[in-house]
């Protein structure tokens, strides 16, 4: 649910990075944080375990260009990917405006991606949200690694609604901003009613 504040002339939008454990959600946010100008970003808040696994969420606010004199702020969140943190994962989806599903292309994670997508759809349904009505894109991450699955095959299994697709190697920054721009545009288009 976007917050449009006419008094301070700000539009706030909530974007959630979702996906299986260790797929690169936090890595996406870390790269965006590292490469964004100081004046356009806030702190990167990470609620992680002592082993650096996301416990609750990561949060990064960034400002993009103005729209009709309104400052547009993107509130980027990740969810904990580990299966047993589903209660926390569901909480982060509340009032989401856009979703980036980060899929791990490694062959060994093929099933984990499908399970995570099913879990996303299920968690959204519990809030009464329909994934088809929420701006969503899929990022196929770790494209640089050996032993990766065919994107065509994975996409056939996990993208029945033909969400836009981006390839990435988040650890090297490849595709990270392209993905962010992709989802930001979709979310603003939804505001516009397109």
């Amino acid at each position, binding site marked *: *649910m*976007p*917050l*449009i*504040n*006419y*008094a*301070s002339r700000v539009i*706030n939008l*909530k974007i959630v990075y979702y996906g299986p454990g260790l797929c690169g959600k936090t890595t996406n946010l870390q790269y965006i944080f590292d490469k964004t*100008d100081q004046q*356009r970003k*806030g*702190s990167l*808040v990470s*609620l992680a375990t002592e082993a650096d696994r996301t416990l*609750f*969420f990561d*949060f990064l*606010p960034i400002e*993009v*260009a103005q*729209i*009709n004199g*309104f400052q*547009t702020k993107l*509130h980027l*969140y990740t969810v904990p990917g580990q299966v047993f943190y589903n*209660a*926390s994962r569901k*909480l*982060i989806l*509340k*009032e989401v405006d856009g979703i980036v599903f980060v899929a791990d292309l490694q062959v060994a994670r093929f099933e984990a991606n499908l399970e995570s997508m099913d879990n996303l759809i299920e968690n959204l349904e519990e809030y*009464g*949200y*329909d994934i088809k*009505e*929420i701006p969503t894109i899929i990022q196929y991450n770790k494209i640089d690694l050996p032993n990766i699955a065919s994107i065509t095959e994975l996409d056939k299994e996990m993208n029945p609604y033909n969400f836009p697709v981006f390839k990435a190697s988040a650890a090297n920054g490849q595709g990270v*901003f392209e993905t*962010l*721009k992709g989802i*930001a*545009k979709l979310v*603003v*288009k939804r*505001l*516009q*009613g397109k």
Partner: protein
Amino acid sequence: MYNKTDLILYDEEYQRFKEVIDNFLLISGSKYVFLLSKSGQVLVESGQTEHLDVTSLASLIAGSVAATIGLAKIVGESEFSVLFHEGESSNIYISLLNERLILVVLFSKTTSLGLVRLKVKTIQPSIQAIYQNLLKKMETHTSQSLLENISDDDIDKLFDF
């Protein structure tokens, strides 16, 4: 279905919320107070905000409130409407006002929890009335004047900086 009712804060309601929380700040002796949406976005604030990362604070409080609602459901409550964090010099009082709004009060030893709690209760009806008014206005006014004018070119330029 996905709730398309966005939260839109107009100048008039902003000013009315602001008057209420400005006054609350004075009568409760608090340092800083703000109204927050459940998704973690600040609507209106009042008081000393220097050296305070309000955006991070807001997202953490929204997360904390969401987790507390989850806890409440597990033990058979619909929600725990108040959260309180006590520190050595600063305290945070968090009150769930309705299905969308959270009131957050930061205060120090110069005032008491009892007074803050009492004054929060006294302003709740005013905030609720303004909120109800806002809901009605959102149904009748639309944000089309803002949104219709967004061109594809504007969207393409979101990251041009």
